[in-house]
C-alpha cells in the first residue's frame, strides 16, 4: 500500500465528494452513509449476504493480481466469470449424484470454463496480435450473448422463456451453507475466496514461477533475453486468472442465484479491477479492500429501498475512492521524488 497520509486525505476527499453529490440530489448525507453500514453489517443475515458477495469478488481479484503481475489488463475477467457460471450450470443441470459430488464437479467445471475463456484471450494476444483489452472486451460480449441465448433457448425456464433466467437448480446443486444465528453462512465460498488470495500471495512471493512472471510483467523484452519463455508465462497468468474468475462464476450460480441469469457476473470482474488498482496490485490488501467495497455495494441497495435513491451511488463512491487515491498517491510520489515517478503501472 502507499504511504498512509496521502491515502487517508484522498479517501476523505472522496467521501466529501460523495456527500456533495448526496446533497445535490437532496438526500440526507449522514443517513445515506449510515445506511451503507447498516445495510451491509446491520444484522446477521446482512453480514451473511455481504460475505457471500465478498467471495466471488475475492476470487476474481486474486486472479487479477496474477494477470496484473504479468503486466496484463485482463478486461475479459467479466466474460471468464460468466463462462465459469455457464459451465457450473451445465454440471448442476445435467450431473446426477449426491450434492458434494455435484458441487465439487461444478467448481472444477467453473475453473475449467474460465480458464479456457481466458486462454482464448491469451492466444489472441500472444499469437494473434490482438491486445488483451480488446480481445477480452470482445469475449465479454460474446459470453454475455451466449448466456442470453442459453436462457432464452436451450435452457429456458419451464413454461415461458424469459431473461429472468433458467429454472432454479435442484437443491443438491446448491452450495451448502452453515446454519447459525438464524441464517445460513457461506462458509465454502468464503473459504474458496480466502484460499485463493493466500495461494496467489504465496505464488507471487515465494515461487520461481511467480518471480519470473513478475519479471515478464515488468519488462517482457528483457525477460525474454534472459531465457524466460514469455508467451508461456503470459498464458499461464491468463489460465490462473481465468480459473479463479471461473470459480467466482460457480459461486454466483450455486451459492447465490441458484440459477443462471444474464447478469450472473454481478459486475464483480470490473469491481475486482478497481479493488486491485486500489491495492496497488498487491495480494496483501485485496481481502480487506474487497470486503470494504462489497459492503458499499451490498449496503447501497438499502439506499434504493429506504431513501428512493439510485443504488448506483455505491459505484460512484467506489470509483471516487480509487480515482482520488490513485491521484493522491501519484501526487505525493511526484513531490517526493521530483519528476520521475511512475504510478498506476501494473
Amino acid at each position, binding site marked *: 500500500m502507499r504511504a498512509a497520509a496521502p491515502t487517508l486525505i484522498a479517501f476523505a476527499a472522496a467521501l466529501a465528494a460523495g456527500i456533495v453529490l448526496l446533497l445535490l440530489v437532496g438526500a440526507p448525507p449522514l443517513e445515506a452513509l449510515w445506511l451503507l453500514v447498516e445495510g451491509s453489517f446491520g444484522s446477521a443475515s446482512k453480514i451473511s449476504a455481504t460475505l457471500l458477495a465478498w467471495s466471488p469478488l475475492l476470487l476474481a481479484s486474486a486472479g487479477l493480481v496474477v494477470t496484473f503481475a504479468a503486466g496484463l489488463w485482463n478486461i475479459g475477467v467479466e466474460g471468464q466469470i460468466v463462462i465459469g457460471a455457464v459451465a457450473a450450470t451445465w454440471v448442476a443441470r445435467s450431473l446426477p449424484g449426491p450434492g458434494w459430488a455435484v458441487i465439487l464437479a461444478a467448481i472444477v467445471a467453473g475453473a475449467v470454463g474460465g480458464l479456457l475463456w481466458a486462454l482464448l484471450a491469451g492466444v489472441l494476444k500472444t499469437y494473434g496480435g490482438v491486445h488483451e483489452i480488446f480481445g477480452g472486451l470482445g469475449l465479454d460480449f460474446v459470453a454475455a450473448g451466449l448466456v442470453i441465448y442459453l436462457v432464452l433457448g436451450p435452457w429456458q425456464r419451464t413454461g415461458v422463456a424469459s431473461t429472468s433466467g433458467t429454472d432454479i437448480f435442484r437443491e443438491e446443486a446448491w452450495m451448502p451453507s452453515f446454519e447459525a444465528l438464524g441464517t445460513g453462512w457461506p462458509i465454502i465460498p468464503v473459504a474458496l475466496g480466502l484460499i485463493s488470495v493466500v495461494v496467489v500471495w504465496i505464488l507471487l512471493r515465494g515461487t520461481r514461477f511467480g518471480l519470473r512472471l513478475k519479471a515478464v510483467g515488468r519488462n517482457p523484452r528483457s525477460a525474454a533475453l534472459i531465457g524466460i519463455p514469455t508467451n508461456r508465462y503470459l498464458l499461464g497468468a491468463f489460465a490462473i486468472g481465468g480459473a479463479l474468475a471461473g470459480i467466482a462464476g460457480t459461486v454466483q450460480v450455486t451459492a447465490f442465484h441458484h440459477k443462471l441469469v444474464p447478469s450472473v457476473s454481478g459486475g464483480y470482474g470490473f469491481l475486482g479491477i478497481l479493488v486491485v488498482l486500489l491495492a496497488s496490485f498487491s495480494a496483501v490488501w485485496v481481502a480487506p479492500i474487497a470486503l470494504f467495497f462489497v459492503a458499499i455495494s451490498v449496503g447501497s441497495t438499502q439506499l434504493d429501498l429506504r431513501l428512493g435513491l439510485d443504488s448506483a451511488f*455505491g459505484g460512484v463512491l467506489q470509483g471516487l475512492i480509487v480515482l482520488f487515491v490513485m491521484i493522491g498517491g501519484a501526487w505525493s510520489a511526484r513531490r517526493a521524488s521530483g519528476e520521475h515517478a511512475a504510478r498506476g503501472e501494473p
Partner: protein
Amino acid sequence: MENTLNSIIAAAAPLVIMTMGETITEKSGVVNLSLEGSLRLSAMTGFAVAFWFGHAFAGFAAAAVVGAAIAAIIAATSIRLKLNQIAVGFVLTLLAADLASFLGDSFVGERGPRVPALPIPGLSEIPFFGKVLFDHDLVVYGSFVAIAVTWWYFYRTRPGLNLQGVGERPEGAFARGIKVNTLRFWYTVLGGAMVGIAGAAYSLDIKLGWRETLTLNLGWIALAIVIFGGWHPLRVAFGAYLFGALQVMAFQLQDVFPGLAQVLPIAPFPLMILALVFVYSSWFRQIGDRYPRVRNLLGSEAPAAMGTVFERE
C-alpha cells in the same frame, strides 16, 4: 432503399462523431478508454440541461463540457502525474456510468426538446441522394463535417502532420520544437468534447429521453470501431456506418427473427477481432509484401506512441 440508407446514416451519426473524436485522441498518442462512461454521463447531462432550459443546444454544450472534462482528467493525470491512461480511463468508465445512473434517476421517463429536422433546401430534392444525404438534421450534417475535416486535417495540413508526429514519434516531434504534451492535452480534450456531443445526440436526437440503458455498450463499440478502422478517419467512418447498418437491420428484423436481432449488436466485436487477427497473420503479410496497395488499404498500425507518457530528457 433510400429510406433505409437514410436511417442508417442518421443512426450512425453520433457514432461517427464519437469515433472521429477518439481517432483524434489516439492519433495524438493518448487512449481515452472511458468512452462507455463518458457517453452515458454526457447523454444524461445533455438531456438534463436541455430539459431545464427547454433548448437542445444548451444540452449539447453541457454534454461537450462533460466529455471534455473527463478527457482532461485522463490527459492531465497522464502528463503531469505519469498515471497510467488505461487505469484512469477504466476507473472513469465505471465512475461516470454510475454517476449518470445516480444523478439521472429523476429524469427517467421525462420528455425533452429535440433537434429539429433540417432538410437542406434544393439539395434534398435531388432524386435518391437528396433523401439519403440531405434530408437530416444538424447532428447528421455535423457527422459529415467531422469525417471530412478530420481526414483533411490529418493528411492535408501542417498541424495535422504534427498531430501524427506527436502520436508516432514524440521524441522527433519534440526535437522539431513541437510542444508534445500541450498538443496531446488539447487533442484529448477535443476528442472528449466530441464524445460528449455524441452522448447528447443519443438522448436528444436518436431517442428522446434518458434512461440507463440508452447508450449501453456503444462506448465500447466505438473503441472497437476505431481499431477496426485502423485509425484512418475514412475507414473508421466506414466501420461506424457498418454498425449503423447492423443496428437498423436488427431493428427491422426484430419481429421476424428475434434471436438474430439480439445477436447483431454484438457482431462488431468478433468482427474486430477477426480483422485484427487477419491483418496480423503471416498470410496477410505475404499478400502485403506482394501488393503494397492492399497493405495500405487494409493494414492497420496503431500510433506507435499510443498510451505512453512522454518525458523530456
